[in-house]
C-alpha cells in the first residue's frame, strides 16, 4: 500500500531556486535565510508546526510575499505574482463554501489568465477543462454546486483548476487536511500519478506519517529550514524535536518510518520517564494559534494506528 520509492533528482535547470531568501510580510520577516531547490519531477513535502511559515514559503514561490533579501527564482526568472505560472491549490478551509459557483465554474477559473479582455472562454479552454475533469474523475460533477461535494471531490475540483493550464509546478497547501484516511490516500496517489507524468509538486502538511510514507523528499521548516532530505533521514527524534519542539518517538515498522505523535499522552500516564531536558511537553513555540496541531492520532500510542485518525481539530 505505502511505497516510498527511490528519489532520483533530475538534472538540468531547477524550477524553483531560493538563495538565502529572507521573506515575509510588511515589516515582519517570517522566513530567514532559506535555501531551497526544486527540480523538474520533484515531489517535496513541507513539514513544520503552525505558524512556522509553510504557507509563507508557498507564497514566496508564487511571488506573493515581500522578499527582504536573497534571490528567489522560478524557471530562471525572479518570482513575480503577476507572472507566476505555477498551479496553486489553497487550503480548503479558506474557501467560502456558500459562494454560488459550480465545479465547472471553479475549474474554468484556471483559464482566467488567457484572453483577459473577453468575458467568454475559448473552445480550447473548455476542452482542456473537460479533459482535466475526466482525468480526475469529476466530469459528471461539472454542474454541481461546490457545497454538494465530498471532501475528496472538493480537493479534486480545486486541483483541476490548478491543472488546466498545464503547469510544470504544482503547489498545494495542506491537501490532506480534514479528509478521511481513504480520501487522503486517493489524493496522495493522484499526486503521485501527476508527479510521474512530470509535474513537480510541493505540498505542506501537518501529517508526518502519511508524507513520510509517500514522499521521497521532506523539508522541515521553522522560520528557516531545519532539515531536508529523504524521510528515512529527516524523520528522527532530534530533527522532529528541533522542528516541533516536542519529543516524538520514531519507530521503524516493516520498512516504514513512523512517528508516535503523542508526547502529551506519554508524559501524563507516566509510561515514560520525564525527558532529560524537561522539555517533553513544550509545544507550539511562538504561535498565536490556540489549537493543538498534534491533533493527528492524538492519544493513540499504538505504532500502526499512529498514522490513522486525522483532523482532531
Amino acid at each position: 500500500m505505502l511505497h516510498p520509492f527511490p528519489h532520483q533528482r533530475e538534472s538540468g535547470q531547477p524550477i524553483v531556486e531560493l538563495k538565502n531568501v529572507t521573506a515575509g510580510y510588511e515589516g515582519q520577516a517570517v522566513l530567514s535565510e532559506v535555501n531551497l531547490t526544486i527540480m523538474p519531477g520533484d515531489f517535496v513535502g513541507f513539514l513544520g508546526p503552525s505558524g512556522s511559515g509553510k504557507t509563507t514559503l508557498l507564497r514566496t514561490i508564487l511571488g506573493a510575499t515581500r522578499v527582504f533579501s536573497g534571490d528567489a527564482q522560478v524557471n530562471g526568472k525572479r518570482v513575480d505574482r503577476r507572472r507566476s505560472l505555477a498551479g496553486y491549490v489553497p487550503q480548503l478551509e479558506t474557501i467560502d463554501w456558500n459562494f454560488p459557483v459550480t465545479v465547472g465554474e471553479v475549474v474554468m477559473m484556471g483559464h482566467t489568465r488567457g484572453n483577459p479582455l473577453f468575458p467568454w472562454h475559448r473552445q480550447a479552454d473548455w476542452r482542456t477543462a473537460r479533459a482535466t475533469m475526466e482525468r480526475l474523475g469529476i466530469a459528471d460533477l461539472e454542474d454541481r454546486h461546490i457545497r454538494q461535494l465530498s471532501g475528496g471531490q472538493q480537493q479534486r475540483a480545486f486541483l483541476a483548476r490548478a491543472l488546466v493550464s498545464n503547469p510544470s509546478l504544482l503547489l498545494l497547501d495542506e491537501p490532506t487536511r480534514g479528509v478521511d484516511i481513504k480520501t487522503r490516500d486517493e489524493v496522495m496517489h493522484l499526486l503521485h500519478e501527476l508527479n510521474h507524468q512530470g509535474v513537480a509538486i510541493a505540498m505542506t502538511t501537518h501529517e508526518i506519517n502519511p508524507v513520510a510514507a509517500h514522499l521521497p523528499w521532506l523539508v522541515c521548516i521553522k522560520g528557516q529550514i531545519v532539515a531536508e532530505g529523504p524521510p528515512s533521514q529527516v524523520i528522527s527524534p532530534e530533527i522532529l524535536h528541533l522542528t516541533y519542539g516536542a519529543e516524538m518517538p520514531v519507530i521503524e515498522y516493516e520498512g516504514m518510518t513512523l512517528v508516535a505523535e503523542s508526547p502529551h499522552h506519554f508524559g501524563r500516564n507516566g509510561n515514560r520517564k520525564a525527558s532529560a531536558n524537561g522539555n517533553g511537553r513544550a509545544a507550539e513555540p511562538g504561535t498565536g494559534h490556540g489549537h493543538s496541531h498534534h491533533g493527528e492520532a492524538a492519544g493513540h500510542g499504538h505504532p500502526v494506528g499512529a498514522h490513522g485518525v486525522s483532523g482532531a481539530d
Partner: protein
Amino acid sequence: MLDPFGYEFFVNGLIAATLAGALCGLVGVYVVLRHMSYIGHGLAHSVFGGAVISQFVVFNVIFAGTAVGSIGRDGLGETYLLVGAITWGFLTALAITLITRLRIIGADAAIGIITTASFALGIALISYTRSFRDFEAQLFGNILGVSTADLVTILVVTVVTWAVFLVWYKQFLFSAFEPEVAGFYGVPTWLTDTMFSLVLAATIVASLDVLGVTMIAAAIVIPPITARLLTNRFRTMMILSTVTGAFCGFGGVYASWVLDISTGASVVIFSSGFFVVTLIYTRLKGFLAFGPGSRSGRGRVSQGQAAVFD
C-alpha cells in the same frame, strides 16, 4: 382612483426606480458576495456628505457671487455636483477597500469610520450655512423630483456598469470568490477593486435621489440575497438579482402611489416582502421534496438550502 400613468412625473419616477433597482441589484451581487453588505449603507452616507461638500464648494467657492448660484437643478452647478459626489464616493470606496486589503483594520470598522465622518461633515456644513437646497429627498428618496437629467444619468450609469461587468466578468467572479488566490491566477486585483469602487460610487450617486441615503443599502442587499436563494450559479445570480431589483423598484414605487407612502420606504418594504415570499417558497419546496423532518435531505436541497450571509 386617479390613473397615475397619466402624470409625467410619476412615469419618470417609475422608470427611474426600475432602473435604479436593477442597477443596485447587479452591483449588489458583488457587494454581498464579498461580505461587504454594510458598504452600500456606508457609501450612501458618504456620498451624501460628498454632495453637500461639492455643493458648498461649487456655490461658495468656485461661483461665489456669480449668477450660477441661482441656476436651477439642471444647470451647470448640477454637473459639478454630480462629478463631485461620484469622486467623493469613489475615493471613499477605494479607501475602504485598500484599508481592508492591507488588513490595517477590519472592513466594518473602516466603513464605519470613513463614511460616518463624511456624512457628519455634510450635516455640519448644512447646519452651518443653512442655505442649501432641500436635502430631504436625498435622505429619504423622492420620485416626484426625478428630472429627465436624472433619468439620463441613471441610464448612462446602468449601461456603463453592465459593460464593465460583462467585459471583466471572469476577474470579478474570481476576485469575489477568492480575493487573494485570484492574484496568483493572473487577476489584477488592484485594478478590479478600483473598477468596482468606481462603479459602486456611480451607482449610489445615480440612485440617491430616487431611493435616498437611508434606503439604498436595502436596495443593494435584498435583490442579491433573494437571487441567491434561487440559484447556485454566479451568472444566474447576476441576472436574477438585476431582474429582482427592477421588479422591486417598479412594484415599490407603484405601491407608494397607491398607499401614499414615502418612495424609499415603499421600495424597501416591497423588496423585503418579496424576499420573505421567496424564502418561504424555497423552504416549502425543500420541505415537500423530502418530507417533514427529513434531516438528511436538507443538505442536498440545492435551491432551498442556499446561503446564509453574515
